[in-house]
């Protein structure tokens, strides 16, 4: 109905270095313009445009029925989204911050993730749950959690997390178009990262579930995603001086997990480090390391190592730099991959 509200001329005028936040907003807008069943709902998503301004302008452009300020209740937001999806809409839910999505877990786990299964395929729920996640923005308590381990432990959900401006757009479009529910984790410290991204140029909207090699290399693979990608890219550049040619794999999607791309890389390099921000024990890195080991055991020159946040509640902002895996910690792990040479 409001397709005309996204004139190409305006887009061209705005084509310049774009932030991830802008790309996400554009993805929402384009999805809404293309498909009248796409509805955005959440806390402060209307007039304010969301606390991160991702939904800026949507209520104005599409009306409050399409971009709705809900009462302040996460279970209610996701629970009503379930009903909306049951009636044929495609709700895109915004959770304000990672740790405030927890009240909605019951709805997510007991209903969103299971509806297709419990109705033997009769009732898929095409819901996208956008969750800004992770630290590094100086947020106080409950504003910096990396909650991906909870989501990936729940069968029936796709769990996606972009690390680049292009992927933020492409993966969000694909998530909204998916007939399966998607938890779309937005690395909030990359919201303001920029890229020369012109929305009017063709943007790849790939099926979710494909990892990508961001930097080819020969001596070891860094397996990472979301907020840790820039850290790994920097580490890879720094490692060159020390004679390491690191390959960097950006998973982009934790579920489905792209075993092929990851295993192919590790078989080439023979060494791997998994890098993420969330805590290590019971974190995604353990699963990834196990999968890599199972598939690549005979190609491995060293154990698959993990670099993660500490196993502590997310620390206060003045301390978070100690918790977040930075370039040095990644390089230390890379150094430990000398395993065979040393023993």
């Amino acid at each position, binding site marked *: 109905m409001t397709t005309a509200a996204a004139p190409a001329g305006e887009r061209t005028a705005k084509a310049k270095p774009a932030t991830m936040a802008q790309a996400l907003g554009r993805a929402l807008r384009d999805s809404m313009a293309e498909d009248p069943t796409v*509805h955005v709902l959440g806390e402060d998503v209307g007039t304010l445009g969301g606390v991160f301004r991702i939904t800026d302008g949507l209520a104005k452009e599409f009306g409050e*029925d399409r971009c709705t300020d*809900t*009462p302040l*209740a996460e*279970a*209610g937001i*996701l*629970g*009503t*989204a*379930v*009903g*909306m*999806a*049951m*009636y*044929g*809409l495609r*709700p895109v839910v915004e959770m304000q911050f990672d740790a405030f999505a927890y*009240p909605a877990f*019951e*709805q997510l786990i*007991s*209903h969103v993730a*299971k*509806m*297709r*299964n*419990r*109705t*033997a*395929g*009769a*009732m*898929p729920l095409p819901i996208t749950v956008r969750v800004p996640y992770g630290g590094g923005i100086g947020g106080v308590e409950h504003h910096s959690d990396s909650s991906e381990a909870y989501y990936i432990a729940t*069968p*029936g959900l*796709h769990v996606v997390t972009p690390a680049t401006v292009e992927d933020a757009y492409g993966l969000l479009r694909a998530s909204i178009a*998916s*007939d*399966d529910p998607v938890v779309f984790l937005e690395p909030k410290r990359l919201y303001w990262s920029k890229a020369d991204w012109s929305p009017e140029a063709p943007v790849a909207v790939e099926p979710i*579930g494909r990892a990508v090699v961001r930097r080819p290399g020969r001596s070891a693979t860094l397996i990472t995603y979301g907020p840790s990608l820039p850290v790994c890219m920097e580490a890879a550049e720094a490692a060159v001086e020390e004679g390491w040619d690191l390959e960097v794999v950006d998973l982009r999607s934790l*579920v*489905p*997990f792209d*075993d*092929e791309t990851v295993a192919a890389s590790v078989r080439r390099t023979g060494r791997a480090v998994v890098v993420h921000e969330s805590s290590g024990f019971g974190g995604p890195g353990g699963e990834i390391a196990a999968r890599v080991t199972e598939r690549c055991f005979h190609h491995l020159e060293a154990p698959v190592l993990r670099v993660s946040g500490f196993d502590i509640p997310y620390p206060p902002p003045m301390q978070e730099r100690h918790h977040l895996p930075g370039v040095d910690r990644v390089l230390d792990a890379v150094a430990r991959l000398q395993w065979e040479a040393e023993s």
Partner: protein
Amino acid sequence: MTVQELPGAAAYRPTPPPAWKPLTDPAPLLPDPEPYRVLGTDAVADVDPELLLRLYTELVRGRRYNAQATALTKQGRLAVYPSSTGQEACEIAAALVLEERDWLFPSYRDTLAAVARGLDPVEALTLLRGDRHTGYDPREHRIAPLCTPLATQLPHAVGLAHAARLKGDDVVALAMVGDGGTSEGDFHEALNFAAVWRAPVVFLVQNNGFAISVPLAKQTAAPSLAHKAVGYGMPGRLVDGNDAAAVHQVLGEAVARARSGGGPTLVEAVTYRMDAHTNADDATRYRVDSEVEAWRAHDPIRLLERELTGRGLLGDDGIEEARVAAERMAAALRERMNADPVLDPMDLFAHVYVEQTTQLREQAARLRVELEAEQGRHGHNDLEEGR
């Protein structure tokens, strides 16, 4: 200590800013102090006798269904059955008050409402039988899957009703919940969303006295569960849940109100669970026989039967006819439930995602190998027999 008693309190007394006023006058939202009744009162004269007879037949059938399903648990044909005996009036009225395009959101106890709405009696038992989770297509019947986590289906009903209204369809959602379920956060969130959005939803609380073993007095300190509506800005209605005509009328009014854009209603039907929580529960641990007996005198079928026979609308023939029809249904149910369902273990992987992930494909392949090995073992004897 009140505000006035504080030293210098007058200075701190907040003056409401000019725009402040209550959003809603609470008086019309308040439930009557006594549950509304129709049977045995003058109000019954306005009820269509056809409707009363229909309710009666369905109640008798429903009670027989509960008894048959409970018997099936003893035979191991059902994993569990939460009987709604004593609550049939609520179940049946909920189903009959809805138009075909409307939606029902039942809890795990509301099999009967689903059957009365027209769902196949066997399909309605799929969850409780344990062969799969939901035995029907919710969209086809406009019945959401029977919901086990308490009150979580209530926001779904709100969302669906809201979506229907956005699409311009005059569809109403009726969501059922128990007295215990009203303590859950989802109950609160659903009612609040419904009221703010003026969603065409009717919430039916079946207050059957207990949440498993916990009596209402330990569940809430509210004057009644219907009173909770006022705080959300929707009307609360209190009705005798054993009076089928009254429940039908009150729900009917609430549905009509919702359909015409008047927003949601919370209906509390005061009833009693005659059987234990489920076949696995021992109700003697938490309630006394005298209480159960008192409610037996207020049985929904007896109430209706007395009304109908008293007015000459139902005779022995009619009673017998209803009984025979119920018996026929029970026999058919028994027979169909005695057949073992044919299950395909590969279905376990079929409906997790649109497309199976690599992990699921690997796991499915592993299960297939296990199944083939199992068949191989069964085939082993054949080999020994010289084939």
